[in-house]
């Protein structure tokens, strides 16, 4: 048997992997640890299928401390927002205090250098919080720092850890531990305390479920992890289920579904470019991105459902009904909630309509499949009543 090679293999294998503050806690739980983005991370605890199902049914706890947390700090919101808007296509000037937005760092061709979350904390005018991908964070920080005006500084929060608590019971778990977050809208951010531990939360995540990302000082994260796991509704979830959950949620994985050669328009992320930025431009690659918005794109990211049971993985060629190549799979595998294989990839725009019949080339054979709309599992984000 060939040794299974994990899709997200380590790209930093030349150096010893780093450990998050929770490394020993993962090992004590019997996690299988694998190198990922320069860190030794838990890929699974009890098993990917059970973890995936538990997260959709109750609450899953993830250690995502490998991700990069940083703050942009300047004299006022307008100055800091304009500095960041020169690098990303989201409307940050109009970002309300206590809110978060999803965006992308773009290159001069409109290609995606990384995707990130940007938040504006209440009562902290002149600061913007950033959360970036682990594998990209060193390059992101250099890219951002080199392009900031003199009065805006980038602070990197090596001292902070990051947890995600995801699933329909996540909010109830946090409320039972004293965090007054029940009324928070999807993408709200703010400070709170969980069992007396000060944290900074956002109501967001990477699973398609309701849930929270919890930024906490590295010195207190082990205690917080243990307190959360003491609740019987909470189980630890590894990177394996994190990947199957986000794939069913139709969410992009950087380096697979989006990269320096894909634009936000091709990737179906136009919703993250707000109206004012579409009108004004002023971000890297704006000429290309705005012309794609006006005139359409040659290829698009789509969801794909194979008819049979065989998964099609990242890199599988997509062909039309005549066997002509029309694209490539960028993420693919088994969707435990769907109960069958699911994939995402790019196809020529004329083939991107849901219902289009395609083939996915797996082990030399074109397996029949269909273009479908994303996500595979409906999102259950919490929308607060206005």
């Amino acid at each position, binding site marked *: 048997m060939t*040794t299974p090679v994990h899709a997200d293999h380590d790209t930093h294998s030349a150096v010893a992997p780093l450990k998050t503050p929770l490394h020993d806690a993962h090992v004590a739980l019997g996690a299988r640890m694998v190198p990922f983005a320069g860190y030794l991370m838990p890929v699974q605890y009890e098993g990917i299928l059970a973890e995936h199902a538990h997260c959709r049914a109750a609450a899953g706890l993830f250690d995502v401390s490998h991700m990069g947390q940083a703050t942009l700090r300047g004299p006022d919101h307008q100055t800091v927002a304009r500095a960041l808007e020169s690098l990303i296509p989201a409307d940050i000037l109009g970002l309300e205090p206590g809110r978060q937005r999803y965006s992308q760092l773009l290159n001069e061709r409109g290609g995606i250098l990384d995707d990130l979350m940007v938040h504006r904390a209440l009562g902290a005018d002149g600061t913007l919080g950033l959360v970036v991908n682990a594998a990209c964070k060193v390059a992101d920080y250099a890219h951002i720092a080199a392009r900031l005006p003199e009065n805006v500084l980038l602070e990197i929060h090596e001292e902070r850890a990051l947890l995600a608590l995801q699933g329909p019971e996540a909010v109830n778990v946090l409320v039972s531990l004293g965090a007054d977050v029940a009324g928070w809208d999807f993408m709200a951010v703010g400070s709170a305390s969980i069992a007396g531990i000060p944290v900074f939360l956002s109501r967001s995540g990477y699973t398609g479920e309701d849930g929270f990302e919890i930024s906490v000082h590295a010195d207190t994260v082990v205690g917080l992890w243990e307190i959360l796991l003491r609740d019987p509704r909470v189980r630890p979830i590894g990177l394996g289920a994190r990947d199957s959950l986000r794939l069913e949620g139709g969410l992009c994985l950087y380096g697979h579904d989006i990269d320096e050669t894909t634009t936000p328009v091709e990737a179906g992320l136009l919703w993250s470019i707000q109206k004012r930025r579409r009108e004004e431009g002023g971000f890297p690659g704006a000429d290309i991105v705005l012309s794609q918005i006006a005139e359409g794109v040659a290829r698009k990211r789509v969801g794909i459902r194979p008819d049979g*049971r065989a998964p099609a993985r990242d890199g599988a060629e997509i062909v039309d009904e005549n066997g002509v190549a029309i694209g490539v799979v960028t993420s693919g595998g*088994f969707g*435990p909630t769907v109960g069958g294989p699911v994939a995402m990839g790019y196809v020529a725009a004329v083939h991107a309509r849901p219902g289009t019949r395609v083939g996915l080339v797996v082990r030399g054979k074109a397996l029949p499949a269909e273009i479908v709309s994303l996500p595979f599992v409906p999102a259950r984000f919490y929308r607060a009543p206005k």
Partner: protein
Amino acid sequence: MTKYYTEEHEWIAVAGNIATLGITDYAQAQLGDVVFVEVPVIGRKVKKGEETAVVESVKAASEVYSPVTGTVVEANGPLADNPITVNEDPEGAGWFCRIEMSDPAELEVLMDEAAYKTFVEGL
């Protein structure tokens, strides 16, 4: 019946000139939850070292190689509907196919159970 093992974590159980092929308990534990199995068609001729079955976990696909040359005479069709059998009973109900061997001398280089156990302990 005699059981043999490979360094790639396949097992074969030999009775007469018929060899039953599967993957070991160690292999299924490494794979994690199996979600897809492809077994060979009956009548297919396989060579020693040739890809004979495919087993996929949530995360990855793995090929299963036949340790012997011969002809597939039986395949475990029900596995397609219950791939998790490979996790639950890898060295029993989770077999992939039976091969009529054309060169039983190929068995001589394979490990017995004790040798395989030592091999796995060294990994």
